[in-house]
């Protein structure tokens, strides 16, 4: 058994929390887990990626090699596109329909592609993908910062490896008290979006 998961987004979107929940889950099920993440300067609005490797075999590198990931969660559309090559041809992505313009696109130097163009390019590379308005849903439920939890809810709907009730319980345990209620609402909303 092996499951390689990458979570990508823009610094500050909460990829670390989501990665932590999934790692705790895999460990509780007795698998080996190795991960790595972006910390430091890049966290300030830059591109960020968390790698999580779950396996029953020894895991050597914390970085998922190109074309080896089974799951790719994109908390931001352009960042998902940037990292889609990490997916294996049989893997899948979940795209949060949410764009954070880049400094260069805002200045008119680069063009930020339209959502349609992004999805077309993704489909060219990977067959299986899902799209949800996770940030919009999180904002409706109280705070766009809970996008990561909506994404986790959606993941449990698609991939049987991630048991809904077990992951829900971990989100509950790992949420800071003041976010607990909203996080649970977001998790359930994410599950219902797909």
């Amino acid at each position, binding site marked *: 058994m092996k499951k390689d998961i990458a979570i990508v987004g*823009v610094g500050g979107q909460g990829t670390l929390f989501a990665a932590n929940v999934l790692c705790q889950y895999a460990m509780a099920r007795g698998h080996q887990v190795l*991960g*790595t993440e972006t910390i430091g300067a*890049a966290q*300030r609005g830059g591109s960020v990626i968390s790698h999580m490797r779950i396996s029953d075999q020894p895991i050597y590198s914390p970085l998922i090699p190109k074309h080896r990931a089974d799951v790719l969660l994109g908390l931001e559309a352009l960042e998902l*596109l940037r990292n889609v090559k990490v997916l294996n041809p049989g893997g899948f992505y979940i795209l949060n329909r949410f764009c954070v313009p880049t400094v260069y696109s805002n200045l008119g130097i680069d*063009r930020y592609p339209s959502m349609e163009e992004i999805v077309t390019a993704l489909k060219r590379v990977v067959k299986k993908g899902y799209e949800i308005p996770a940030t919009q849903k999180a904002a409706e439920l109280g705070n766009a910062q809970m996008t990561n939890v909506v994404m986790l809810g959606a993941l449990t709907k698609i991939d049987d490896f991630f048991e809904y009730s077990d992951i829900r319980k971990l989100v509950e345990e790992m949420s800071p008290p003041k976010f607990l209620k909203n996080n649970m609402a977001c998790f359930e909303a994410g599950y219902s979006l797909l």
Partner: protein
Amino acid sequence: MAEQKYIMGNYAITRGAVEAGVRVVAGYPGTPATEILEGFTEYPHVHAQWSNNEKVALEVATGASLANVRSMAVMKHNGANVCTDMLMHLNFTGVSGGMVLVSADDPGGLSSQNEEDSRILVHTYANLPVFDPSNALEAKQMVKEAYELSEKTQMCFVLRPVMRVCHSRSDIPFEDCLEPEAAARWEDDRERYIMSAVEVRQMGGIKRPQARHRWLNQKYREIVDIFEESPFNHIEPGDGNTGLIGCGMGYTYVKEAARDFDRTYPVMKLNTLPVPERKVLSFIQGKMRVIVFEEIEPVVENLIKQLCNDHHLQVEVLGRSGFYASDGELTAQVVSDTVRRADPELRLRNEVPDIPLGIDVPVRTRTQCVGCAHRAMLYSVKRVARKYKGIVFGDIGCHDAGSFKPLELQSTIYCMGSSIPMATGAHFAGEKRPVFSIIGDSTFFHMGVNGLINAAYQNARQVIVLADNGTTAMTGFQPHAGSGVNLQGQPAHKVDIKGLGESLGVHVHTVDPYDLESTRETLGKAVEEDGVSLVVVSAPCLLTASRKGEQPFEKRRVEVDGEKCTGCMVCVNEFGCPALVFDAGGEKVHVDELSCVQCGLCAQVCLQGAIS
């Protein structure tokens, strides 16, 4: 069985030191090393401190070691540069209590101002032994081994974890801790601890520096022998006349890539410096070529080439020096591409063809957070600097992103504390334009204060903008001498920056960056002043304030009046808040409600009165 915990690699290093009975730890924050020191707050019996810079930290750790307790100094590669002078003395004196220096490297420069290999400084230059861990568990074992060997050999040992070790997360066993000895036990040893040009009577009157150099060279040979038996180096048999050598993280990529190889190459894991020469010779003898995979510089590759030369071996040694990329982070992909190039007969299993995306993916540069006081400060400095045609010298910290687009304010970003002296130099070069420097508070206490004292002493006319947010924000909000608390969160003396400036005889001003108009006025006044002006721009880091439930500004919901917005782009080009989005189609700006934190700064920036 030992309890297992799923933790970050840095905390595994912390734990290793605690299990080894470390007593004193000092460091300065720097990604990817920061969390190692933070981890000691879990172990109150260990004295752990954020020193104001790495040289101080290394000296604190050395003092503790000489007092016969186990100690550790923690930093990133740039920090190891800062403490080079001390390093080049403590290598000659040796230590007493076990001592470990951790210098973490950042291949690819993901969170650093340069890409640099610590091993050159600590091993090639200072001749200290180095452990280069392949993963977090090994890093922990190496720390424990390093303390044993340090006391056995009197040498300070170095751990060089790369970012993927520091910021990995894995299951780590927690074993029993050695009880640190109850009390320090200082014993004078002037033959070692007095590094001065004095004649050594027992050695025929040669000077002490030469005597200690001789000692260091002997120690180095001794450690080569010790590492012949080290558990951190081993050989895995394989077929053919090509051998793969993996060092530290490089070993993991070799093993990862090898899963897809249709043949088994002999592999050597080589995680110590100096390298165990007999073991390396036994691996390379009879081979046509070996390929060395190591992070950043060809350190091991060059040592093996030298070994081949000394032993007249005709083995091709390939690696970082040009056979594969001499810059950037290694990956399993780099390993398989490289091995395939060296051995065209290699076939890969599970090869997936690259399908082009058919679309350009624009780069994403980092910036300040939405609502950050630095953006307000940078905007104000830019307006004043432009009015006076000033040159702005930058320094390290979150505000350094003001040197990127869209602001492009600072003309230089070098090392910690370089801004004020560089401005001083430009001034004395006869530059007619006024010179400014921007430096954060943590950087100021690190090394910037020296530049300020010098500028004041030389009366080097300039405006120094001290961005005082009360924390070391970039590395994750570590306290410093101006924070009022220590690493453990206990109250600590807070440097009075204003009083310090006044004691140096410079003009001192303090402003609130969220008040753009008064900041601009103050900066304008400072430019007109003779001599050195220190403008202390004070507002807490928004992220630390938010965590405490505080707001450094009065919340204000803003929206753009589409009628009044002329699409002049001042708010995007000159201010650059990521929550302000330019709609290319409509030629207007709108506020992205999902990212806006309601700081209200853009309403002060808009020249058309369109944002309110």
